């Protein structure tokens, strides 16, 4: 009989009686856990990306100062994408008595392609989602616009040559626009009206946009084909390039989901190792018999190797199906909580999971199985001749490392992966060391103990090697479960709390220098907190020289930042800013400029370069002396460019204020805004709400993913307990045969499991707390304080799970006649 036939028969025959199922279960759980988590993470990641893309109101936007070539629209349509034309324009709007600068947005039916508009009928009316747009001849206005023009809904405004009736208040638009600064009030109109307004002639500052959305593959194809063809001033933005606040939230989401997936991976690896060890032990008799009956070593090893391959294939198929079903279930549960449907499943993560399982089996299961080659046929006559397991060759680390590289690659976060894997390895080492110490202690104690205590303590020290492996596995499993609770509960909670309760939620722009004192006094009076009032000038970048030599001549830099840029000046580094290169100036310094890193990267400037601006006909030149990292989601007033204070003497400017306003101050703020008609007040509370909404969804998604990891953790716990169950049952039956009563046996087993639970719980809670603290500090940027609840939960769940599962697995020993157990064993 050849090896393939032998392996097939062994699989069929052993499989039917259940011997192989433990290893299959371990491998299947590994596949299922990684498949479900990575499939789901993949879908959620893409959904969040798409949702973040709501800030574009589309999946992709192409824009230009001039009307876009019709070919671009034609291509999008040809690829099956839905499109929409949009024109934005900053212009003055006239009412009966008043006028103000507005950001006009003109759209077609079908806008927005992603997300939804919200409108209200009046200032005190509740808002609602709508899927329409203003009909020709009507307009929807932002609430602050009513104040600016001092009008009521129903009023008529003049846009170029068109008269429009203000029909509704526009309370939310997904693509509200980047940052609080260019926010003149919004006026949403029908595209036909803007086109008929005569405002789009030569010299107009309109921006033309093509919005497109659809199947991910079609979007990618559209982007790939269109991007290379764009000319100088044309821009293409995708959902992935979301604005700062959303980016940050998305990044945090990825990290949370990656933690869940990696935890599952580590647990699955432990489960496979435990199952493989148990399986290889169970194969020793088989191999000795096969050899005694004349099977050759290589034949047996080939058969065992093939057997493992069949197991992996079977487990991959079962696990893959379970994974697909699992992620489908998760997606179903979550779909109600997500505002956009999840994109379809991709097969790529599934293939990754299958390869992962194969490599994991090669690394963890093959070495113990191959060591069976050394089982002497003489073992059949004398079991004491069993050779101890050989020290495995380091070569087996290769498939293990390769296996672990797959989830790291799929989740795309090396730092987090190293932290998780390193932490797990360190914890495993510590757990093993502590377990070894505890074994020494129990050995001494068991000599002095009597009755059940002796039975329990001796049980632990008698199986010292197995107990150390078990405690390590239990500790790892438990730590993962606790880490989930830490991550799920405390980390997310504390992270949310790390956004200050009094995050600025209002901006007031266009404050003239002579209004500065009045605004500051009034705002302080009406209870505004976190108040910052900063000067701002709109300047034209006219020249850029690289350490003395001219760079780009008189041409302003290309890219997102055209020649026009807002600048401010200050005498000390503002909050939420950190110098990453160069030095910030001291008092009295002049002629210097500090640039935000994003801007510096995009425009391509560095410390030492000199920039020249023109503002209102006055020139100002300064040298870049520092680069700043700016926390854009801090909702403070931040600027790409900061100048030394003397700039204020040169540049015509206004002020912008940011502050948190308790609800009670709303009326007073309204009055202030009315008394200063040139200013605009912007309520970004809605934007902050949106950030929290994203965080909420992320934590919900993370919780569902974690639930799956929790199951993987439980499987490891059970596998660890199962590993020595047979031996425990036989021993218990033996001492019952010798006359021990049920209470002694029961208490002995409980004592053994309780000690194991205590050691595992102590180390796991400590490990979870330290890992949580490191993660919070290194990755999420806040100080995590482990609560007493973590420790209470750790010990309680450890006791419940280990003693409970151990007890359930062994309770039959008390009711089954001992002779039956001994005969079966």
């Amino acid at each position, binding site marked *: 009989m050849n090896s393939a*036939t032998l392996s097939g028969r062994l699989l069929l025959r052993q499989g039917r009686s259940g011997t192989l199922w433990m290893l299959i279960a371990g491998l299947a759980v590994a596949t299922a856990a990684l498949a479900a988590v990575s499939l789901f993470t993949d879908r959620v990641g893409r959904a969040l990306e798409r949702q973040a893309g709501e800030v574009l109101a589309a999946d992709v936007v192409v824009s230009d100062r001039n009307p876009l070539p019709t070919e671009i629209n034609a291509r999008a349509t040809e690829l099956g994408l839905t499109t929409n034309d949009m024109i934005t324009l900053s212009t003055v709007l006239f009412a009966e008595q008043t006028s103000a600068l507005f950001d006009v947005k003109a759209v077609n039916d079908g806008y927005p392609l992603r997300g939804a508009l919200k409108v209200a009928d009046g200032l005190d009316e509740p808002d609602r989602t709508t899927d329409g747009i203003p009909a020709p001849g009507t307009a929807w206005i932002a609430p602050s616009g009513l104040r600016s023009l001092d009008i009521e809904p129903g009023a008529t405004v003049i846009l170029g040559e068109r008269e429009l009736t203000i029909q509704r208040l526009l309370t939310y638009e997904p693509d509200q626009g980047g940052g609080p600064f260019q926010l003149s009030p919004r006026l949403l109109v029908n595209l036909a009206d803007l086109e008929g307004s005569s405002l789009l002639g030569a010299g107009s500052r309109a921006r033309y946009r093509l919005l497109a959305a659809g199947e991910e593959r079609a979007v990618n194809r559209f982007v790939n084909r269109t991007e290379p063809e764009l000319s100088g001033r044309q821009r293409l933005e995708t959902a992935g390039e979301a604005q700062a606040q959303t980016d940050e939230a998305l990044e945090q989401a990825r990290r949370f989901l990656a933690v869940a997936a990696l935890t599952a991976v580590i647990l699955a690896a432990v489960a496979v190792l435990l199952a493989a060890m148990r399986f290889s032990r169970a194969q020793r*008799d088989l191999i000795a018999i096969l050899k005694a*009956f*004349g099977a050759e*070593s*290589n034949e047996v090893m080939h058969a065992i190797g093939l057997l493992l391959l069949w197991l992996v294939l079977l487990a991959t198929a079962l696990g893959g199906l379970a994974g697909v079903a699992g992620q489908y279930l998760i997606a179903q549960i979550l779909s109600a909580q997500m505002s956009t449907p999840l994109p379809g499943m991709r097969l790529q993560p599934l293939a990754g999971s299958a390869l992962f399982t194969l490599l994991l089996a090669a690394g963890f299961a093959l070495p113990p199985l191959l060591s069976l080659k050394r089982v002497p*046929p003489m073992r*059949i*006559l004398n079991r004491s001749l069993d050779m101890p397991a050989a020290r495995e060759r380091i070569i087996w680390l290769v498939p293990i490392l390769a296996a672990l590289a797959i989830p790291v690659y799929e989740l795309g976060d090396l730092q987090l992966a190293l932290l998780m894997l390193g932490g797990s390895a360190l914890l495993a080492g510590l757990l093993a060391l502590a377990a070894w110490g505890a074994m020494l202690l129990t050995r001494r104690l068991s000599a002095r103990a009597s009755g059940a205590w002796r039975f329990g303590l001796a049980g632990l020290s008698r199986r010292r090697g197995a107990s150390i492996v078990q405690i390590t596995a239990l500790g790892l499993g438990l730590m993962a479960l606790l880490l989930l609770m830490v991550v799920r509960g405390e980390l997310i909670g504390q992270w949310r709390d790390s956004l200050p309760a009094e995050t600025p939620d209002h901006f007031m722009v266009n404050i003239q220098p002579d209004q500065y004192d009045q605004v500051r006094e009034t705002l302080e009076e009406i209870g505004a907190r976190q108040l910052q009032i900063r000067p701002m000038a709109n300047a034209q970048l006219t020249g850029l020289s690289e350490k003395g030599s001219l760079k780009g001549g008189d041409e302003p830099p290309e890219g997102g930042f055209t020649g026009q840029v807002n600048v401010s000046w200050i005498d000390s580094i503002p909050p939420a800013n950190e110098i990453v290169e160069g030095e910030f100036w001291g008092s009295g310094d002049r002629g210097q400029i500090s640039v935000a890193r994003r801007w510096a990267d995009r425009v391509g400037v560095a410390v030492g370069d000199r920039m020249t601006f023109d503002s209102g006909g006055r020139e100002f030149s300064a040298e870049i002396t520092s680069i700043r990292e700016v926390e854009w989601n801090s909702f403070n007033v931040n600027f790409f460019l900061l100048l030394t204070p003397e700039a204020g003497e040169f540049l015509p400017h206004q002020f912008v204020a940011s502050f948190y306003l308790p609800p009670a101050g709303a009326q007073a703020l309204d009055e202030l805004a009315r008394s200063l008609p040139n200013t605009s007040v912007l309520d970004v509370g809605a934007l902050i709400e949106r950030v929290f909404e994203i965080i909420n969804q992320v934590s919900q998604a993370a919780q569902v993913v974690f639930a799956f990891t929790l199951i993987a953790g439980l499987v490891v716990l059970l596998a660890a307990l199962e590993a020595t169950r047979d031996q425990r049952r036989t021993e218990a039956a033996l001492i019952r045969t010798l006359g021990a009563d049920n209470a002694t046996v029961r208490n002995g087993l409980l004592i053994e499991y309780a000690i194991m639970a205590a050691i595992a719980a102590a180390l796991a809670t400590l490990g979870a707390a330290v890992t949580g603290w490191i993660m919070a500090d290194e990755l999420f940027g806040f100080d995590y304080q482990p609560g007493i609840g973590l420790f209470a939960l750790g010990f309680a769940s450890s006791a419940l799970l280990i003693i409970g599962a151990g007890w359930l697995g062994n309770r039959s020993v008390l009711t089954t006649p001992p002779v039956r157990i001994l005969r*079966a064993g």
Partner: protein
Amino acid sequence: MDAPGGRLKIVKDISLDLNAGQTLAIVGASGSGKTTLLGLLAGLETPTAGNIWLAGQNLGDLDEDGRARLRRARVGFVFQSFHLLPSLTALENVMLALEIGRVDKPRERALKALGQVGLEHRLNHYPRQLSGGEQQRVAIARAFAGNPAILFADEPTGNLDRKTGDAVADLLFDLNRDRSTALVLVTHDPRLAERCASVATMDDGHLQPAATTDSGAAGDSRKAAGVRGA
């Protein structure tokens, strides 16, 4: 031999011949080296010094795989603790040995062998569902199904009550007689030993000369199917 605690010298100065169809009982106190000798004779283990010929081949000239090939062609085993694979049924346990031995029509031959030991009604039972005597009968069917030239039995009745033990012994000797299979058995049971043609006693690793018993029908030395150790 190599053991987990280091190298052990268990049997020494042994000279022994066994011809086809002969029966030999090896008796002696526990720890005297009986089972080790059996393992050496069957080629499960190799001696540090001396030679063993099995079925005309010097085991010292063969590597482990060579000895395995020789075993599957010529040797059968019966063990005190039966050593049936718990995950296989009675029929599958017998078939597996035949399949390893590359015997044609393993299922038919296994069915026949189990029929010969009176277990045709227990074919699909797992070992745990069988009594001790039945398990040993499966082991005997497994050992004889491949028509070995020589059968090694390690305490074949050691785990059985007297009545069942007698029945198993009858079976062993019947098959020995019917098929001219040489039989080497290690036993503590003087009654079982007496049924063999000769009895050799192990004492602290030394083998006392074989004594011929009343039942000692001499084997056929011309068949050269037996074993010779020196």
